[in-house]
C-alpha cells in the first residue's frame, strides 16, 4: 500500500529538507569557495610578476590549474542547485496527490524548516553568483 497521510508527510519533510536546506547549503559552500578562488586573480602579480616586465614562466600552468579549480567549484554549485530543484519537484508531485500529507507538511514548514538535526546548517541566503573562467 502506498504511503499516505501524516506519516508520509514526515518522509516528505525529510526529502524537502534535502532539497530546501542541505543541497542549497552545499551549493552555497561551493559558490562561496568559487568566489574565494576567483578573487585570487587580483593578487597574481604579487607572486609571479617581474617588475622589468612579464610574468614568471610558472604563471601559465599555475593559473590554468587555479582556473580549473574555480570552475570545478562553481559548476559543482550549479549542479547542486539543479539537484535541489529536482528533489523539491518530487516533493511537490507527491504533495499534490495527497491532501492530508500536503496539509501536514505545510503545517510543519509554516514557520520555515522544522528543527535542524545536530550538525545541519541552513544557508545564510541564496548562493553567491558563481564566476566561471572561459
Amino acid at each position, binding site marked *: 500500500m502506498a504511503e499516505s497521510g501524516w506519516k508520509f508527510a514526515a518522509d516528505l519533510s525529510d526529502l524537502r529538507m534535502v532539497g530546501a536546506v542541505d543541497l542549497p547549503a552545499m551549493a552555497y559552500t561551493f559558490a562561496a569557495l568559487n568566489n574565494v578562488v576567483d578573487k585570487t586573480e587580483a593578487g597574481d602579480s604579487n*607572486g609571479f610578476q617581474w617588475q622589468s616586465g612579464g610574468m614568471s614562466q610558472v604563471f601559465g600552468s599555475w593559473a590554468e590549474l587555479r582556473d580549473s579549480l574555480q570552475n570545478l567549484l562553481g559548476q*559543482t554549485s550549479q549542479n547542486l542547485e539543479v539537484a535541489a530543484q529536482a528533489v523539491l519537484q518530487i516533493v511537490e508531485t507527491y504533495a499534490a496527490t495527497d491532501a492530508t500529507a500536503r496539509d501536514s507538511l505545510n503545517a510543519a514548514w509554516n514557520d520555515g524548516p522544522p528543527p535542524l538535526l545536530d550538525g545541519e546548517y541552513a544557508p545564510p541566503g541564496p548562493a553567491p553568483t558563481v564566476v566561471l573562467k572561459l
Partner: protein
Amino acid sequence: MADYRYHSQDDLQKLGERIREKAIKVTMSQEASYAQAQQQANNEATRYDTGQPTQSPNYHRPTGGRPDDDGNLHAYLMDAYQGIPLLFTRFAVPDPDSARSTLDALYKTAVTLQPSLEIKSDSGQLTTPLQVGDEPGTVPVEQTKNIMVTHLKQWSGHAAESFETYVKELETSAAYHRQISISLANGLEAMIAIRKSMLTDIWEIGDKTYKALDELDSWCTNSASQAAKLTILGALAAVAFVVTDGAAAVAVEGLQSAAAIMGAAQTLQTASHEPISGATVPPILSGMAKAIDRLQAGVDQQEQVVARAMQAVSGSLDHLWSRALLHAPSPLTAAAGQSRSELERPTGFFVH
C-alpha cells in the same frame, strides 16, 4: 630564511649605481686598473676608427683629446659600466610576502572542504585546523553528506539510489578540490621561497662585489678576494610543503600532488660560493657577472620544477574530470518531471 630581507626595485637600482660609481672610482685611482682601462679605451677607439664593432655597446668616440686622458677615460668608463644597475634590477619582483593573501585563500578553501583536515606545519607536526579557518556561511561537506543520507533512508527506487550515490560521491569530489587547492598553495609557497632566495643572493652578489672593489680601493692591498654565497639551488629543498596526512584525509586516487613532485625533484643542495676577486676592477666585475648568470640559471631551474609540477597536476586532473565534477544524476532529473505513479515504479523515487 633567517637573513632574508625584501629589496625593492629601487633598492636594487641604487645598489647597482653604487657598484658602478665604485668601479669607476677605483679604476681611476688604482694604478693597475687605470693602466688596463687606458689600454681598453685606446683599443675601443681603434676599433671604432677602423669600423669594427666595439666591445662596449654604449661606446661614444671622444671628440677631443686622447682616448685615454683622464676626462675621456672617465666618460669611457661611464659608458662601459652604464648597464650595471640593470643587471640587478632585472631581478626586481613585488614583495614575495604580498602573495600571502592568495595563500590564505587557498588554504581556507582546503580547510572549508575538509574541516578535520590534518596539515603538516613547518615543524612537521600535525596541526588542525589551519590558522585561516573556513569561509563564513559554508558547511562541512562530509557532515552535510551524512545528514542527507539520514534524511533519505526511507526513500527507494533507482532515482533515489542514484541520488544517494551522487550525495556520497560529493565527498570524493570535494577531496579532489581540496587536493588541487593545496597543490596550488604549494606551488605558490615554492615561488615565494625561490624569490626570497633570489633576492637574498642578488643582494649578496652586489654586497660582495662592492666589498671587493673596496678592498682594491685600500692603499694597503693590491688584490681583492671575496665570494658570494648563492642559496638559490636549495630554495625548493628548504620549503616545508603543506601536505595532507592522517586518517582524516580522504584518498585522492589518481590526482598528482605538487608537493610530492617538487619534493622528488630536489636533492639537498649546499650553497655554492662564487668567487668575486682579482687584482684589478675588470676581473671583479667579471666575477660579479658570472655569479649573476649562475643565479639566473638557478632561478630558471627551480621555476621549471614548479611549472612541471603544476602541469602534472593539471594533466592528471584532465583524466579525472568526471569524478571531480559531479552532475546531478539523470535518473533524478528525469524523476522530477514524472507523475506519482511513475515515481512509484522501481525506476522512480518512492518511500519503501
